[in-house]
């Protein structure tokens, strides 16, 4: 009989066993549990600086504590609450120039004039992320289009995205002045974060709906469309039969009318 078996009736044995079991359980859980992606190292200074930036630049619509405003009353402008949107939403909205919004209109359009430096955006993101857990900024590897499968991504895109963004990612109209923007020339990171956070009218496609592999596949598909170019010539906005039909009517028929006039003329 070995030493371990001899002590199995010791009064502390049950407690030791329980401790070992709990430790193993905890270790196993931390190994398999889904964890929110870490967004670099965030210090308390970043959070407080971010809060100051937020209150100076964003609070007029989103409220002093990012609690949001349901409806705009008086000169106050309505803005949604930012608790739980995460650093990814802040990064997406601000680094694509959508926020701060230039005017309280139906659509926050993408803009090339980005008002804040990357550090300031990261600080505001750190503050917003400190309010409630939310999606973090994805890593380089998660958005690398060369690692995705464009064929699978195309299938997912056609089911989940194409109804608003057009089957080739050219964008399209929504209700009452809103629209789904074109997805051409959008940074892979921004495509990822848009799916993750659901900006403006767009629904959320979280990791339980389209996991990070699926998101990377979709990015790979969009980049393959972008790289494919237009070997057939003029793309006419890639909007399909409407613009193509109009082109044929105006230029094709115009040319035919001109030829018909020439045919009917007598030679000099």
């Amino acid at each position, binding site marked *: 009989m070995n030493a371990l078996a001899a002590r199995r009736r010791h009064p502390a044995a049950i407690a030791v066993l329980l401790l070992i079991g709990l430790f193993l359980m905890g270790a196993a859980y931390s190994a398999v549990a889904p964890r929110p992606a870490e967004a670099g190292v965030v210090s308390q200074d970043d959070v407080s600086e971010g809060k100051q930036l937020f209150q100076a630049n964003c609070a007029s619509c989103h409220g002093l504590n990012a609690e949001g405003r349901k409806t705009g009353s008086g000169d106050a402008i309505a803005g949604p609450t930012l608790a739980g949107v995460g650093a990814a939403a802040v990064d997406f909205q601000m680094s694509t120039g959508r926020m701060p919004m230039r005017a309280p209109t139906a659509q926050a359009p993408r803009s090339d004039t980005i008002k804040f430096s990357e550090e300031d955006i990261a600080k505001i993101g750190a503050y917003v992320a400190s309010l409630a857990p939310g999606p973090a900024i994805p890593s380089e590897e998660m958005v690398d289009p060369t690692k995705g499968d464009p064929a699978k991504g195309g299938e997912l895109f056609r089911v989940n995205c194409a*109804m608003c963004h057009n089957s080739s990612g050219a964008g399209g109209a929504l209700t009452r002045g809103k629209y789904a923007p074109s997805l051409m020339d959008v940074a892979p990171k921004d495509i990822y974060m848009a799916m993750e956070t659901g900006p403006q009218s767009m629904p959320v496609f*979280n990791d339980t709906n389209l996991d990070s592999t699926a998101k990377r596949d979709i990015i790979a598909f969009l980049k393959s469309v972008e790289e494919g170019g237009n070997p057939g010539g003029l793309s006419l906005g890639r909007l399909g039969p409407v613009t193509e039909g109009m082109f044929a009517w105006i230029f094709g028929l115009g040319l035919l009318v001109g030829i018909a006039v020439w045919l009917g003329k007598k030679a000099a």
Partner: protein
Amino acid sequence: MNDQDITAAEGFGKDAVRLDEGHVVGQGGIPDRFENPGLPPHVPRGADLSEAAAKRAEKQVAGLFTLSILGTVLFVLAYFLVDIRTMAYLPGIGDMSLQHVLLGVGMGLALLGIGLGAVHWAKTLMPDEEVVEMRHPMRSSDADRDEVVRIMKEEGGKAQLSRRPLLKYTLGGAMSLFALPVLLPVLGGLGPMPQKSMSLTFWNGGPSGPGEEPAFTPMRLMRDPENTAIKASDVTIGSVFHVLPEGLLDLEHGVLEEKAKAAVLLMRLDPSDIKSQKELDWGHQGIVAYSKICTHVGCPVGLYEQGTHHLLCPCHQSTFDVTDDCKVIFGPAKRPLPQLKITVDDEGYLVSAQPFREAVGPSFWERG
């Protein structure tokens, strides 16, 4: 004497009719018969008069035909010599396949050269004297017409058709009924009657052919196209899932036919945003499932705006309010989207609690 002197001398305009006088019959009178003005005098063309102009026209036509030959040669050369992946920059268009450009330009020149050359030839060198050939009378001679009437009356009478009406009526009946065997296969060729299949979907318990209604079993809601089940906890607020019933994508055939009726959109709203009690009751904690098939003409209604909770159909802009049981708030659709009653099974997966209570998609005659 020019025109103006004539009008002044004859007092032209003195009897002019004012605009408010109505119709006044003029004094010029109308001839009994308008004279045929005939053809305008023939004007000879440049090539008819001078041999130099004719020679020039000949060269132009020959040039156009040569252009066509060059176009064809360009087409053939581009087909064999240019790689399809070679891209070339075209001003106003951007990068595009060089071979496509050369093939298009070559074929365009080849056809246009022939066409323009032929027209130019006809207009400059072929004879252009206008000639009119008068139409001869169409009427047969009186003798011929009388003979036809005589044959119909006398010779036809020998068939005794007018004396024996029974023959006339049975022949008429046989001839008109004979259209049926021609018509029937055409109608039959349209396929079997849809019967119940228009009102049933895969959610009723399986493939819904024209036969009997399958027995209902709760089915899991599966992601399209991954074909994986969805847990209620997976659906966060603001999410939208494109859903098919369990087993549909595993069908061996008829997948598209079933998908066209059974496609469902799954959304999660804040329950306090939902105005309809029935919508809350048929959902699960703010998760609601609605048919994705528009009630107007059956397009997939997939454009969900999570901010306004509007659901937009891309074909004709019918807009449905997801907070109010998908009632129509804009556009040509007449009925709200049918809701699929869902619940959660023992393992936490979303399942259907009953099939659609009404037929999905556009209206049809037998729709109950």
